[in-house]
């Protein structure tokens, strides 16, 4: 029907280009996985650049790594892992037909954990770096003990801010998506047959967690924290 040819609200959740709900679900899931593949390469470009410079300047990157606070890094890792659990439970509660209050509870918890991550990062880590003049482009100050390594220490900090900044941007988008999902759950949109938006948003959220799982060791732990 030509009625389907323009943007309009779809109360049943079923889109007419598909044959049935299962095809729609499979297509949605494949689509999100393909999108995550693009994200692997998007972040991956920066990982590749980081790998190159780290191979060329291991000592300077080690010095840079020590400018970061492992306690915050580890705590934030734990926070994100918790948020992945709550996200998985949110999806599961929809899948098992729980009432909408349960779904909303898990989604809100996930958003709070995400917000906690961002709060710890911006208010403590980044603000501290700003005070200490270790943000490149914002009054970066070379310390004398870096010696000849100083330019590459600044290079490391460039990577730190670019990579965690891009990650934080993805988290903010993720929290926004979760807010939209919470609204949808509040309107009773999700049933045990239709919870695809939750599922594919969950894939995105877990992926952002995985990025951090790699960022933490590469940025905070790479050179080792033993005395040297």
């Amino acid at each position: 029907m030509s009625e389907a040819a323009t943007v309009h609200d779809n109360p049943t959740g079923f889109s007419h280009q598909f044959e049935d709900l299962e095809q729609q679900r499979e297509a949605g899931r494949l689509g999100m996985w393909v999108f995550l593949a693009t994200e692997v390469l998007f972040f991956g470009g920066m990982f590749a650049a980081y790998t190159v410079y780290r191979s060329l300047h291991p000592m300077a990157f080690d010095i840079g790594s020590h400018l970061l606070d492992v306690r915050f890094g580890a705590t934030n890792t734990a926070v994100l892992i918790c948020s992945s659990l709550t996200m998985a439970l949110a999806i599961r509660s929809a899948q098992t037909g729980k009432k909408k209050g349960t779904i909303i509870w898990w989604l809100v918890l996930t958003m709070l954990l995400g917000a906690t991550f961002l709060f710890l990062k911006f208010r403590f880590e980044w603000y501290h770096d700003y005070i200490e003049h270790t943000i490149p482009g914002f009054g970066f100050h070379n310390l004398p003990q870096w010696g000849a390594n100083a330019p590459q220490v600044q290079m490391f900090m460039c990577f730190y801010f670019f990579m965690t900044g891009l990650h934080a941007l993805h988290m903010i988008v993720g929290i926004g998506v979760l807010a939209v999902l919470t609204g949808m759950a509040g309107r009773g949109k999700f049933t045990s047959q239709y919870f695809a938006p939750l599922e594919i948003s969950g894939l995105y959220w877990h992926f952002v967690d995985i990025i951090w799982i790699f960022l933490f060791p590469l940025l905070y732990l790479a050179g080792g924290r033993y005395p040297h």
Partner: protein
Amino acid sequence: MSTTATIDHAPGAPAEPQINYLNARYGVRSWLLTLDHKRIGLLYLGTITVMFVVGGIAATMMRLNLLEPQGALVEPETYNKLFSTHGIVMVFFFLVPSIPATLGNFLIPLMIGARDVAFPKLNLLSWYIFATACCLMLYVVATGGVDTGWTFYTPYSSLHSHTDVFLAAMAVFIGGFSSILTGMNFVVTIHKMRAPGMTWFRLPLFIWAMYATSLIFVLATPVIAVTMFLLMLERVLHVGIFDPALGGDPLLFQHMFWFYSHPAVYIMILPSMGVISELITAFSRKKIFGYSFIAFSSLAIAVISFLVWGHHMFVSGQSVYAGLVFSVLSFLVAIPSAVKVFNWTATLYKGSISYEAPMLYALGFIGLFTIGGLTGLFLASLATDVHLNGTYFIVAHFHYIMVGGAVMALMGGLHFWWPKITGRLYPDLWARFAALVIFIGFNLTFFPQFILGYLGMPRRYAMYPAEFQALNVLSSAGASVLAVGYVIPVIYLIWSLRNGPIAGPNPWGAKGLEWTTQSPPLTENFVKTPIVTEEAYNYETAPEPEVARV
């Protein structure tokens, strides 16, 4: 609608006007808020045509300037901005989206028997993202352009250029997301929405080509996005990972840039090859020779294209050992392309060949693409590339493939599917004439450039030694012929919208699901989901063409 009394009807055309995707809804909103893949394809066609004109104007000014050794038209600084504009606009805003976003969007659901793509709203969003990126780029051009070349090499682009690199990089960055969404949509559509009976090996080869292209879209485009993102950060912060003062490596930028940009050239040529497969079979009325070879060669090209990017960096200071590896792999990537050329030629053998305009474009493609591809082998060889890099030999090489290849295929495909898209036939005599003018103009423009490059004329130079003038004048003269050749189809194709004979469902008597439905198609493509029972290109069961063969 024109009155049926004064417009010709081709044999097989319906007597009364039908409801179709073009007249189902009227008004600007019905176009700007459409979810119909066919309308979105046409939105893209309009946008890329505008960008082609902008890039073409830049090229015109360049060729006019090169009429004289000391530069006839512009200062060298302006010339730098002209070739940069020409490259950026033509690569990112014309060629990369050209066939995929126009013919791909229009045809993929039709060819696989689906009602639409998997994600129509994302499809519309991808056009809006593309249109935004185009507007941003046009703004950059209007406010002075950039002078970094389309390759944006650092540290000039990141630290020293006084032009608006930030916004140009942002335009490319934004445009990249349009490609990513299109690629995602096509991958999911082809995997999940084929009609009953449409197995992978019954798909038209255009679909195989589009699938391979979509793989490249998805895997390569994010890397150019992040590269442009890093360039933008460095422009704003005045410090970054390509900054030599911090030990940044200019070659790292080149690695990241070419990781996308080499596969990008295959984004530009693979869909064209898919179109050619359709045209050759239709106009020799014969099953394609070596279907699975062509199908797998598309995938092979997509994969191997990611392994060769260093051949753009042979003389940049890259390690000799990496150069060796990239050189060998670059030879390898030529093989699947050659397989296709052999198979197309074998398809022609003992076929019932006719010479309508689409076929002329297809035959022209085979010849010109072969020349372009073979000259690529000169460049894949380390020893010869040392002399040819940075010369007009490279310019000629890639224009033979991009213009002699990709643009000819776009023209051929537009003509072939024009009756399906618009429900009208165009005047084939004018079409064949224009194809000939384009072929002649193209060769006059670019063949002399092979010679110029061999003789040592550098590229991206506003001035040149006096002994090169004759060839430059010949090239510029050819460009004017080529320009005329491009204008002629614009005229008769637009004319045909109101005055062309009304087409039937299958003017060419071709095989393919798109030809089993009315011209133009309904919004939902098929009245009933088709069920596929035969192999592709089974011309023994093909209907007779509705228009006389040439």
